[in-house]
């Protein structure tokens, strides 16, 4: 197998600068010259929130946003990803900073693949700005490798895309060859020489977590050659199943044929009831095999379902009802889909007997790779896949905004001191276990004695409470109960410069029945903010 890797240089900028999308694609299909000229990426950077722009949405770049991508020219001026926009403008006032648009980038990628498919039948999407082309099928057409390379170079030049090319026996080797080539150049790795080509290169080229890479360096596995020569069993025992993939990549082993990019027809299943279904349970009973067939079809291609649409047709000819189910990550299992649809169906009434239904897969995506022969447990698709699946199912229960991880932020009032982020945004890392605590047979270094005070349970919003206060504005009767002891006041000032008079005087108040309350006074009103527990 011979693979040609085409890598577009400075892809995010090319995708943004070359957005004529469909127009360019249509012109190319007709064999006309591309309407756009060569893309000139100048002093540019991309900063801001990721995600596709919605129709009509204008996303602005704030001075505090961080740079995500930096063009080569900007890099020469000392800019680098991670700087804030304000810092970048300080260093280079004339820089053009634009927000990211994943939708536009995806559109440009589709255009890129569609154009390549005009010249070769099998083209695989290799990620942003990278495509793999099966060489064997077009070798005769273009008169050998040289002809193929010249053809694709001239095509990319015509379309205005700066690129580098690499030819090798596998995807990773071909991509590495392309990465090591300069603009408009090609590097061909002879057949059977992939391992030799990769051997002197650093392991940094592998898609490995930086922490793991550091540990590989520490044990002397600093080149791909050293990694390829290491015992896979030992690496797997130390780093998990993923290590087998690293060894295979370092040894230039890639036996999977390319998977063509051709868009697939939408997957759909229709079911006609012999007797109309009147209950949700009947519907679900029929839905399960329908979903199972869709899932197995996609799983055979290594893909899972992101979004599906259930369309219900009623016996009395009413307008069909549509239910849309979206998951956070693609799933290759039927159960979460059935659970999700159950929640959707139980949430609303069936307005009449259902005579038939259609299930359409709107969006699907690749599942996590399975490196072992058998999954960890039946139906499991690796830990990250299982986590994504779990989060998707939990989100159906809690609704949007009902789940996540907390991040503290500076705030004036207690209820403004945190924000809720989606799980995984801040990155979680499991700490190593301390020694000797697994079964509690040794004295623990940290015990429950190390207190920081009682936990505070807050109310969703402060509630008005009846308080009798002394002349110096200290509570002595709260909601009919006598106050035994009080600490405070602790003053929290409001944003007076905005005209908001929200000065609060907080008290920790112990009642005679043992309740310890967290109260505050605003003006002459008293509010209960929480209870110590």
């Amino acid at each position, binding site marked *: 197998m011979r693979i040609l890797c085409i890598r577009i240089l400075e892809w995010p900028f090319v995708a943004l600068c070359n957005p004529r999308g469909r127009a360019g694609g249509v012109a190319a299909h007709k064999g006309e010259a591309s309407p756009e000229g060569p893309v000139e990426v100048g002093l540019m950077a991309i900063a801001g929130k990721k995600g596709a722009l919605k129709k009509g949405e204008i996303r602005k770049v704030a001075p505090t946003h961080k740079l995500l991508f930096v063009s080569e020219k900007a890099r020469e001026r000392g800019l680098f990803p991670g700087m804030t926009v304000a810092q970048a403008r300080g260093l280079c006032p004339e820089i053009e900073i634009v927000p990211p648009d994943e939708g536009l980038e995806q559109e440009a990628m589709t255009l890129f693949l569609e154009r390549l498919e005009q010249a070769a039948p099998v083209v695989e999407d290799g990620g942003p700005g990278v495509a793999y082309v099966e060489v064997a099928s077009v070798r005769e057409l273009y008169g050998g490798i040289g002809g193929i390379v010249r053809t694709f170079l001239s095509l990319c030049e015509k379309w205005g895309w700066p690129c580098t090319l690499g030819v090798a026996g596998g995807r990773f080797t071909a991509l590495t060859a392309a990465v090591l080539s300069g603009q408009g150049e090609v590097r061909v790795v002879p057949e059977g020489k992939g391992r030799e080509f990769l051997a002197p290169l650093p392991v940094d080229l592998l898609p490995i977590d930086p922490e793991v890479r550091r540990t590989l360096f520490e044990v002397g596995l600093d080149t791909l050659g050293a990694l390829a020569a290491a015992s896979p069993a030992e690496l797997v025992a130390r780093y998990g199943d993923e290590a087998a993939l690293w060894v295979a990549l370092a040894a230039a082993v890639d036996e999977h044929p390319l998977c063509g990019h051709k868009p697939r027809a939408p997957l759909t299943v229709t079911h006609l009831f012999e007797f109309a279904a009147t209950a949700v349970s009947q519907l679900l009973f029929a839905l399960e095999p329908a979903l199972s067939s869709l899932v197995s079809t996609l799983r055979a291609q290594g893909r899972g379902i992101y979004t599906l649409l259930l369309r219900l047709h009623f016996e009395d000819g009413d307008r069909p009802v549509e239910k849309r189910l979206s998951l956070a990550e693609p799933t290759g299992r039927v159960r979460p889909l059935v659970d999700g649809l159950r929640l959707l169906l139980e949430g609303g009434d069936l307005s009449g007997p259902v005579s038939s239904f259609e299930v359409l897969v709107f969006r699907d995506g690749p599942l996590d790779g399975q490196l072992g022969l058998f999954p960890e447990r039946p139906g499991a698709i690796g*830990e990250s896949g299982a*986590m994504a699946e*779990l989060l998707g*199912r*939990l989100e159906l*229960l*809690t609704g949007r905004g*009902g*789940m*996540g991880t*907390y*991040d*503290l932020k500076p705030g004036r009032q*207690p209820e403004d*001191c*945190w924000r*809720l982020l989606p*799980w995984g945004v801040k*990155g*979680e*890392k*499991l*700490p*190593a*276990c*301390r020694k000797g*605590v*697994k*079964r*509690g*047979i*040794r*004295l*623990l270094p*940290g*015990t*429950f*004695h190390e*207190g*920081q*005070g*009682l*936990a*505070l*349970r*807050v109310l*969703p919003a402060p509630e008005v409470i009846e308080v009798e206060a002394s002349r110096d504005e200290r509570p002595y009767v709260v909601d009919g109960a006598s106050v035994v002891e009080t*600490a*405070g006041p*602790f003053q*929290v000032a409001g944003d007076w410069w905005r005209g908001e008079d929200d000065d609060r005087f*907080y008290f*920790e108040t*112990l009642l005679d029945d*043992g*309740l*310890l309350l967290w109260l505050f006074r605003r003006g002459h009103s008293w509010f209960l903010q*929480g209870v*110590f*527990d």
Partner: protein
Amino acid sequence: MGAVLALQAAKDEIRRRFPHVLLTGQPHLRPLAPVAKGELEGESEEDLRPPFERLVGWPLARGSCLALGGRGATSLAWKMMARARVELGERVAYVDGTRAFFPPGASAAGVDLKSLLWLHCPDLGKALRAVELLLASRLFGLVVFDPPPGQANDVLARRLSLVLLRAPSRLVVLERPATYHNVRVHHRVSVEAAKPQWIKGQPRCGAAGWELLARPLSAGGKRPEALVQLSVGGK
């Protein structure tokens, strides 16, 4: 015969050293017998854990359910969340039925907020279902459940018990009156926070010193009762 005796002796030794693990049958079930008063006062040589840890059975065995009740239960649950993360290296999830979770306070108690999955489920049925999903996923080593007010669905509660039998996770439930029934609880502890002391200069949410009384409770009230009192001094 000698080999059998040696094996039995080894089993006894292990059982003595690891009192929270059953050797045969179901290793995820903890023995139900609470710690007797005499046992707590005179610590045995093998188990050097502080009395409070012994009382609440910390570190909790996998597959166990601990119910915490009384004033101070939330404080204890937060400390468990912090310790589960640091000492056991486990992911922690908090199913919040009352939306009473106060992130700055939890962070001050040592809870790693970045790795804490927080869920808000005001509906008791959905909350129990969420707990069931979290336990069955095996991705979270400790699930803390602060149930919303309401009567639990018996079927869901029993299902939760079954999941707990199979899942290598730990469940801590903050018991509120009349909310939570029919879940097999392996250990039930009542906590009583009393006599708060204030230390000047503390942050506004810090009732800095507190005493904590804990007693194991049994369902039938027949088991011997122990009482442990700790004086916990804040910084």
